[in-house]
């Protein structure tokens, strides 16, 4: 830019101008607005995913636990936002380059550079700090929603909410800082575009440790095998899946972090396609797999297949072609039923299938990055998966055990039979219909 200044002449200037709109670049403040708008629009799509989890889980639990899962999902999204404001953001992004943990301080936007008389909008890469905060915030609740789904129908309300505080305020931001905050993991070459590992596996690991410590629902596994406990409403589960699918455009698309140039716009568009095609691949793979292996199409596996496809592409939604995205998602769609069967064998009770979709496909998606992105190596991917897995397993195990010791985490058998809605909330989700 500076060199250009020295050479510039009225004529050159003229040339630049008369080339006209055809190739005129996006200017500083305009790029700032575009980038901000991207965060806001993609952010509200991700926020909408909270409703998706609420509906998916409402449909997948039995009616006697539906009101409780609704409380949890509303509370999760609220708590995640507050915790991220009060402590999480700075813990994640107030980190030194290559560091291990950010600072304990409350976040506040710094708009000075943009509102000054002589604003500096950088090289088209600036945005309203508040829009970035908003976009980062909506991600946090996702990890906690995953836990909620796995542990439904037997966990006590308040201990669960305390775990959510720990997860969203500390566990998630600390490991998030390692990579997205520019900490040690990002320096080690790990790559996770929108969070197959940083968001989905984190939720998945916390769910898995919770499921192991909490145990299965009474009657779910008997000596003779596993007894399914069908969810109360398939259309709500389907609605939830569509909501998540929609929200995922924001999840992955917004993770491009910029829209203020043709290159960024092209990237976001490609991410939209790949996000969609991976989900489509997951659906079709699960459709065919369940028909061939189970003899009948299994709706809830197909729904999980969509989510599995989405999680699979989340680590690298930009590099693949559409066809590659179909395949990456399709593998996710097959991993789902395999993992469901494996969990059944292991007598791990995951009510909504969150572990297959978010943990298993999260790992797969992360490891698959080098297949389409040559700048990334398998070893750095394995390092990231392992490091974050270990961190979340250890911290969440500690959190679960402390909660177990102090308050207990599981409702009594009697309360479980009556349903959490009656025992924990003293109400019914469908007071007129249910009798079970």
């Amino acid at each position, binding site marked *: 830019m500076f060199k250009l200044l020295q050479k510039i002449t009225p004529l050159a200037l003229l040339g630049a101008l008369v080339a006209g709109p055809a190739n005129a670049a996006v200017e500083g403040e305009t790029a700032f607005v575009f980038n901000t708008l991207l965060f806001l629009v993609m952010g509200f799509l991700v926020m909408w995913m909270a409703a998706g989890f609420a509906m998916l889980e409402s449909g997948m639990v039995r009616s006697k636990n539906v009101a409780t899962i609704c409380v949890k999902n509303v509370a999760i999204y609220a708590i995640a936002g507050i915790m991220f404001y009060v402590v999480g953001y700075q813990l994640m992004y107030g980190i030194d380059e290559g560091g291990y943990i950010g600072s304990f301080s409350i976040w506040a936007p710094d708009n000075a550079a943009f509102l000054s008389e002589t604003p500096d909008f950088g090289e088209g890469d600036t945005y309203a700090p508040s829009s970035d905060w908003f976009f980062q915030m909506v991600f946090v609740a996702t990890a906690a929603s995953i836990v909620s789904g796995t542990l439904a129908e037997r966990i006590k309300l308040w201990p669960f909410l305390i775990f959510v505080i720990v997860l969203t305020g500390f566990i998630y931001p600390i490991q998030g800082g390692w990579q997205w905050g520019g900490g040690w993991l990002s320096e080690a070459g790990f790559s996770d575009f929108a969070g197959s590992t940083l968001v989905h596996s984190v939720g998945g690991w916390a769910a898995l440790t919770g499921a192991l410590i909490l145990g299965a629902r009474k009657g779910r596994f008997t000596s003779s095998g596993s007894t399914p406990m069908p969810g109360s409403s398939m259309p709500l589960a389907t609605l939830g899946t569509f909501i998540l699918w929609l929200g995922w455009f924001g999840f992955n698309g917004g993770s491009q972090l910029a829209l203020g140039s043709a290159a960024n716009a092209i990237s976001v568009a490609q991410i939209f396609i790949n996000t969609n095609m991976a989900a489509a691949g997951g659906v079709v793979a699960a459709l065919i797999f369940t028909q061939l292996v189970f003899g009948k199409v299994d709706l809830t596996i197909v729904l999980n297949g969509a989510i599995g496809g989405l999680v699979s592409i989340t680590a690298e939604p930009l590099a693949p072609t559409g066809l590659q995205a179909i395949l990456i998602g399709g593998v996710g769609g097959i991993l789902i039923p395999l993992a469901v069967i494996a969990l059944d064998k292991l007598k791990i009770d995951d009510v909504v*299938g969150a572990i297959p979709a978010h943990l298993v496909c999260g790992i797969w998606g992360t490891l698959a990055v080098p297949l389409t992105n040559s700048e990334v190596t398998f070893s750095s991917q394995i390092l990231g998966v392992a490091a974050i897995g270990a961190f979340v397993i250890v911290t969440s195990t500690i959190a679960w055990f402390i909660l177990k010791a102090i308050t207990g985490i599981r409702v009594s058998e009697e309360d479980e039979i009556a349903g959490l809605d009656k025992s924990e909330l003293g109400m019914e989700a469908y007071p007129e219909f249910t009798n079970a």
Partner: protein
Amino acid sequence: MKMIVAIIKPFKLDPVREALTSVGVEGLTVSEVKGYGRQKGQTEIYRGAEYAVNFLPKVRLELVVSDDKVDAVHDAIVTAAKTDKIGDGKIFVLPVEAATRIRTAETGDAAL
């Protein structure tokens, strides 16, 4: 007076109701029940795991009729509810000692 309890296949409710009307039945009460019998419930699949659904949806008819109508009602139900396939259901006849129409306090056959 007798109480006739009939367990039938749900989709036979309308034909049976019509058959009963045609033999002069003026009141009956139905409820949704689940049945277990020779016709076994099917195996359903949920998330890859099979499980037996032991009970099948049935409809339960309960109607109190005067003694002289028992046979006609019984036959009407059998004819209308029959599909010749397993699971068609049962008819039971129980003695009733008294009946009252709440609205008028009429009792006996007049209450039916």
